């Protein structure tokens, strides 16, 4: 079951209010996605902690197999 980029983006935005989120499909099969997330909640967090927050936002979709792979790039606002 594929997942739309929009759905992933909305899940991340819901989990991290105020975040700038962009989700692109890397392979055209809708299951290898790349998310770029800039969120105020990331300020002061290590990369690992930032990535964990993004993964938690979409955990249910990892669990049910909709997302096969998600690569993540995070940053805190300047």
């Amino acid at each position, binding site marked *: 079951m594929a997942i739309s980029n929009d759905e992933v983006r909305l899940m991340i935005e819901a989990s991290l209010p105020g975040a700038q989120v962009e989700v692109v499909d890397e392979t055209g099969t809708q299951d290898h996605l790349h998310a770029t997330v800039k969120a105020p909640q990331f300020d002061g967090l290590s*990369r*690992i902690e930032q*990535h*964990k927050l993004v*993964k938690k936002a979409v955990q249910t979709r*990892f669990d049910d197999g909709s997302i096969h*792979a998600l*690569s*993540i*790039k995070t940053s805190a606002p300047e």
Partner: protein
Amino acid sequence: MTEPTEPSLKDKVEELIRDNRILLFMKGTPEQPQCGFSMRVVNTLESYGVEYAALDVLPALQPLREVTAELSDWQTFPQLYVNGELVGGADIVNEMDESGELAGVLGVEQPERSAQSAKQELQADDPQQSPPIQIER
């Protein structure tokens, strides 16, 4: 005399993390990675010439996800541990490689990457590579 209890998977994982300075949980082996992300981390590590231990998670994928979720609050693979701590997955390793941070974390010098590098002739000898670890279930 009672039999000693079989160490749990979690015990074995903790031991691996403790005993290996650089430890990679990956899908497949360094010679035959079974996933693009794992392959990327292997290639990155190889470029630093460091010795590392590699564990193929595929034979026990779900149980290992549960163990690492418990130990590190992280359950996707690959996972790179250095000095007992989770450094991250493929994305983080890649970012740190590009930013120059990874060399410090691995405890080595930043390898020369530029074309003008004096070390253009890289030695062809393989890094001292430990064989892939097999976990018996």
